[in-house]
């Protein structure tokens, strides 16, 4: 397992870090927020990311990707996380791309993967139906209707849901709430009649939307893979999402920590830097320790995605998301407190990291959710 970076990886990380700093600094997120930008991310930067090959990292070469793999994409997301950079990498490449890869090898899916690799389209996974992560609580139905299906339901907190050209909708073709069987994946053009999308305003100023499906009629080609077979696909998709979201979160936590550490060294009170106070030093060491633990876990989980057959992925994803959640939670709180009054203002960045922290913590499962899941996976 590669817990330590090799040369290619180190180069990739440094490219991505520089890109984030120069092209998508925190000021970019502020601009999107303060101008009420309708897209919610920078389309030019998105094209540049595609040119750098980041959109094709999970996609095999025959489909236009480069197969750099999850570890590489994790390094990119970690770098982007440092500046809270908004991009459709998570929605399109990670969640939708993984779903397409695992759900179907038919031409519609392959075609979309080609477009994803080329950075030509934005997709969104419409899955969650509750504010609290409940992956199997799917009430959205897809009812057979002649040769096609009719979908009804409400999807919530769909990342990039209001801008995606295509929606990947998880719907129930059989079974009751919480039943892993009976779930199916549908590919819906965003313009299909009956779909209404409503952008949400969340604390982190990142993209999220509610999607209402009212008698949405699609033909049978909209079904990805077999009806009722999406359960295992979904589990894999969510695990990949958890790990790569963790990468973004760890980058953000690392940056919030470094900014705070710098402040501790600069800020003078009582004639000395406040970082000379032992109580703050011990708390800084605690943050450092938690970040390093999280890094080990994240790198192991990314490696598992690339290397092992997948048996270990659910456990690793769950350990990873829980650990990174707790770490970002701690660091984001301490960053504000250690900045004192100025940390409470919108003027400095630490508050933005705090806001991103809670949204990301709740996305794809809180630490408590993952502790419970860990116990289940380990059979206790």
């Amino acid at each position: 397992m590669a817990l330590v970076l090799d040369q290619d990886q180190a180069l990739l990380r440094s490219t991505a870090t520089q890109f984030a700093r120069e092209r998508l600094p925190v000021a970019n997120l502020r601009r999107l927020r303060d101008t009420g930008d309708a897209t919610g991310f920078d389309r030019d930067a998105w094209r540049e990311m595609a040119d750098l090959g980041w959109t094709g990292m999970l996609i095999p070469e025959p489909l236009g990707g480069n197969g750099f793999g999850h570890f590489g994409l994790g390094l990119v997301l970690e770098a982007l996380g440092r500046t809270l950079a908004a991009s459709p990498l998570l929605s399109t490449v990670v969640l939708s791309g993984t779903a397409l890869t695992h759900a179907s090898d038919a031409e519609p899916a392959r075609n979309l993967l080609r477009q994803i690799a080329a950075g030509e389209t934005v997709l969104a996974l419409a899955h969650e139906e509750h504010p609290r992560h409940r992956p199997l609580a799917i009430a959205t139905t897809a009812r057979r209707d002649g040769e096609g299906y009719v979908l009804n339901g409400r999807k919530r907190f769909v990342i990039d849901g209001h801008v995606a050209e295509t929606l990947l909708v998880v719907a129930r073709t059989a079974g009751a709430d919480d039943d892993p069987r009976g779930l199916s994946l549908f590919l819906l053009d965003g313009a299909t009649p009956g779909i209404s999308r409503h952008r949400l305003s969340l604390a982190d100023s990142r993209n999220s939307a509610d999607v209402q499906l009212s008698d949405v009629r699609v033909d049978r080609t909209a079904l990805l893979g077999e009806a009722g077979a999406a359960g295992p696909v979904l589990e894999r998709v969510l695990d990949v999402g958890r790990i790569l979201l963790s990468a973004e979160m760890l980058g953000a936590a690392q940056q919030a920590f470094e900014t705070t550490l710098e402040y501790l060294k600069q800020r003078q009170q009582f004639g000395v830097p406040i970082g000379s106070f032992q109580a703050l030093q011990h708390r800084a060491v605690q943050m450092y320790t938690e970040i390093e633990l999280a890094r080990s876990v994240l790198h192991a989980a990314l490696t598992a995605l690339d290397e092992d057959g997948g048996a270990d992925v659910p456990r690793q994803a769950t350990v990873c998301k829980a650990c990174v959640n707790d770490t970002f939670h701690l660091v984001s709180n301490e960053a504000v407190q250690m900045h004192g009054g100025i940390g409470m203002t919108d003027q400095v960045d630490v508050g933005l990291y705090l806001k991103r922290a809670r949204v990301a913590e709740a996305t794809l499962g809180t630490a408590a959710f993952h502790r419970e899941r860990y116990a289940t996976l380990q059979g206790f």
Partner: protein
Amino acid sequence: MSELDRFRDDVRAWIAANYPPSLREPLRVDSPDTPWGGRKTRYANPDVQVWMDRMAAKGWSTPEWQPEHGGAGLTPEHARVLREELAAAGCRPPVISFGLMMLAPVLHEFASEEQRRHFLPPIARGEIRWCQGYSEPGAGSDLAGLKTRAEDLGDHYLVNGQKIWTSYADQADWIFCLVRTNPESKHGGISFLLIDMASPGIEVRPIQLISGKSPFCEVFLTDVRVPKQNLVGKPGEGWKIAKRLLQHERASISTHLQTGLGGSPAGRPLAELARSYAGERDGRIADAHLRDAVARHEMRSEAIALTLRRVQEESGKQGPSALSSITKSLGAQHNKDKHELMVEILSLAGTAWDGAPFTDEEVEVCRQWLRSKGNSIEGGTSEIQTNIVAKQVLGLPD
């Protein structure tokens, strides 16, 4: 019938005749009808002003103050009767202001009689709203490191500098300020000055907080001329006055601590919130972790409530309680914990910034969660409070 009983009857009758029925509903936290007073404050309900004026006319906003200070000169016994009747009738306070809570006690203790007659009546009547000019960008926890300079130019001071975290400076008429009259002595060079916010050279800029609200301002003072008679106490006595005033501030913060013990912004208990977002099983919160977390929080709420009561009882019996030194940071942490728990319960709905489909409660959970982060910073950081307890209460060495 005793004289006191007769007074009680009179008060009751006067309240019945004069209390505006539109104020029957209790005042909510952060209500636009908070009776701050002053020239700039506007109320949603005009009866707020009516009630303020009626009480002021009787001197009953500050019943024990002397009439020449804007009070009614009541004895403590009469004042207690008045308060009891106001409470029994569910009357809102006629004035709530920093002038009343913080500045007035200091004026009573340190100002000249002439200053008292000049400044106290408008405070009592809610005519002048005050703000507090203490912190500076470079002087937060180290308040005595303040740099705002007041130069003695004979009959007036020339003030230059910058204040920060001035609550409602944009709404206030006057500001009480700590200024440096002597750069040679850190603590001994500080003086306490009253400044009209309408003076030329004062600029106020609201500070936007992470919660989106901006109750705080920066105040820039550039060549502001302040008459010398606005100095309270002697030059160099400012630090002594400031410390006393901070005690009043912390006491008034402590009375707000109870907030941390309540439920959601909509008043729903945490358990109910957990039930509605995480579901029920056999009549209980379905999520075992949340049940445990809510129980832990509510049990600590009980412990803190009992400790606040003990502080009051001890203060009553033995004078200032050593315990009161811990209540501020304790309450701050607990309030922060409560808001974190609410965000955890609501999960993504707890990160709702604005607008549909989120409920007002959801948006308020998010905003107040962000706002609560300031609890352990404002009015003395928890770290500073902890240092003080370590040394003054536990006697640990420097």
